[in-house]
């Protein structure tokens, strides 16, 4: 990057380090921080949407739908989330390929599972084996996001379900007294008021979500853990201009600091948000603010 980096073997100390830290591979490492943040900011709304759907389903008057909702909420209790991650990534992939297989190759007569193999016709492969590398990565990433969405959606559904029940009953009764239909009362009265009750749980969930992002590595995404392992391992002088020993300790130390800073920042922002949302609410925090003013 810098002009003095022409011949790294002659450099040492901080100058060498400045050259080392600006090589192309290092930039891939820096980019992967961006990847993680992007995935995080996509996953959060997806999970919230799943959670909202789950919470509504669990409150439904139609019994089978209610059971599905309750089952979805109960799903994350008792079983480690990483089991779901590893399960859903393969299961979703196979389910999609199987559906495409049914649709594209109706005259295929062999069974899908032959011994230890899962075989679908070539046109049903996802992504197609001829597709460029980018699509494979995009497909992997979207599977990972979807999986995170499902699992964290179940957490979020639990929080939102509780929050909907925490809104004082009198509020809904007032809405009914004004002649609102249940649907109107839900969207105009319940949903706007539930957020303050959901916020502590959702902030907690956001923290858990941040701390779950390194698991993307296990789902086959080239994230910061992947690059820290790649670049940190000892570099042989034969293959690189910047040989060094086993630096994985320092790379992972950098990741640790990154996560500490990120969770701390989130804590501060969420604290401010709680304060804002408490304005004019019939909660302890809101009443305290009212008295102070």
């Amino acid at each position: 990057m810098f002009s003095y980096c022409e011949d790294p073997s002659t450099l040492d100390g901080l100058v060498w380090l400045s050259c080392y830290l600006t090589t192309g591979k290092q930039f891939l490492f820096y980019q992967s921080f961006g990847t993680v943040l992007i995935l995080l900011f996509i996953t959060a709304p997806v999970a919230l949407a799943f959670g909202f759907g789950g919470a509504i389903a669990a409150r439904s008057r139609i019994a089978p739908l209610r059971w599905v909702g309750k089952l979805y909420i109960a799903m994350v209790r008792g079983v480690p989330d990483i089991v779901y991650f590893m399960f859903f990534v393969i299961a979703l992939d196979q389910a999609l390929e199987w559906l495409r297989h049914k649709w594209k190759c109706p005259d295929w007569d062999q069974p899908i599972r032959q011994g230890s193999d899962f075989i679908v016709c070539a046109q049903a492969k996802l992504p197609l084996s001829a597709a460029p590398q980018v699509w494979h990565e995009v497909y992997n990433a979207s599977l990972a996001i979807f999986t995170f969405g499902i699992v964290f959606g179940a957490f979020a559904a639990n929080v939102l379900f509780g929050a909907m029940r925490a809104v004082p009953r009198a509020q809904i009764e007032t809405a009914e007294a004004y002649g609102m239909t249940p649907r109107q009362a839900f969207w105009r009265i319940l949903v706007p008021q539930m957020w303050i009750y959901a916020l502590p749980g959702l902030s907690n969930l956001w923290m858990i979500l941040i701390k779950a992002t390194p698991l993307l590595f296990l789902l086959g995404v080239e994230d910061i853990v992947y690059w820290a392992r790649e670049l940190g391992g000892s570099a042989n002088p034969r293959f690189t201009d910047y040989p060094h020993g086993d630096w994985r300790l320092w790379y992972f130390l950098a990741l640790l600091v990154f996560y500490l800073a990120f969770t701390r920042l989130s804590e501060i922002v969420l604290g401010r948000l709680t304060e804002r949302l408490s304005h004019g609410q019939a909660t302890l925090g809101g009443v305290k603010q009212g008295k102070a003013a």
Partner: protein
Amino acid sequence: MSCWETVADYAFRSLGFGERLLPRSDFTLCQQFTLIGSGLIWNVYYGALALGFGFFLAVSLAVGKAAANPLFRKPAEWFIFVFRGSPLFIQFFLAYFLFLKLKQWQPVFDPLTSAVLGALIVLFFNTAAYSGEIFHGALRSVPRGDVEAAEAYGMTGWTKFRRVIFPTMLRLGWPSYTNEAIFLFHATTLVFFSGFPAWQQKGDALYYASYFADKTFNPFIPYPIVAFYFVLLTLVLIGLFGLVNRRLNRHLPQDQRPRMRLKPQILR
């Protein structure tokens, strides 16, 4: 081969006893149940030991964080912040590479690089930090009246802590602590996916489950088996902690005793 023979061969495979080679083809349901159950021994080992040792460190951290003297308060605060603010997965990696460095420097540290000891230490620190925060919260909500009553009886220092503050703190923090214990057992599944090597394929429940899933390309059998085992484990845990909870609250009138719900909270 009958199922009993499989159980005899593989029930303690995760500890290195019995058949040396893992099944390679024609996987039966019995093999999967046995091997994954065998792996569960490690999950219980990590969870139980980390929780057992972690409890004492957690209480010390809680007291330290509540101390007025910054000499005790600051280290406790930082310890809790570092271990609660970063992902366990990263902590495992970091610890493993740190232990590798230590091993190069002094061969004495060799056992630390094995999962048996190294991962246990990380889990121990991790759960101590989370439980320390829980107990710190409980310590702050010990009723003022209780402390005043203890002082009125002339109790001070250690006696006051041991006989009044500590039992109340434990009682108040216990439901959250149960929750943390469940999470800790779940977290033990990360050990063999995070740098720590599984020697001679001696792994935990999820390790064997992913082995089967990789070999058969069929996630629909091994992962539900893991899920089944963990639901059982969680139920046992809730039962045990419920017993302790009953004992901690035995002096309260019936209707004031906090109930342990079978549905634990799912957030840490």
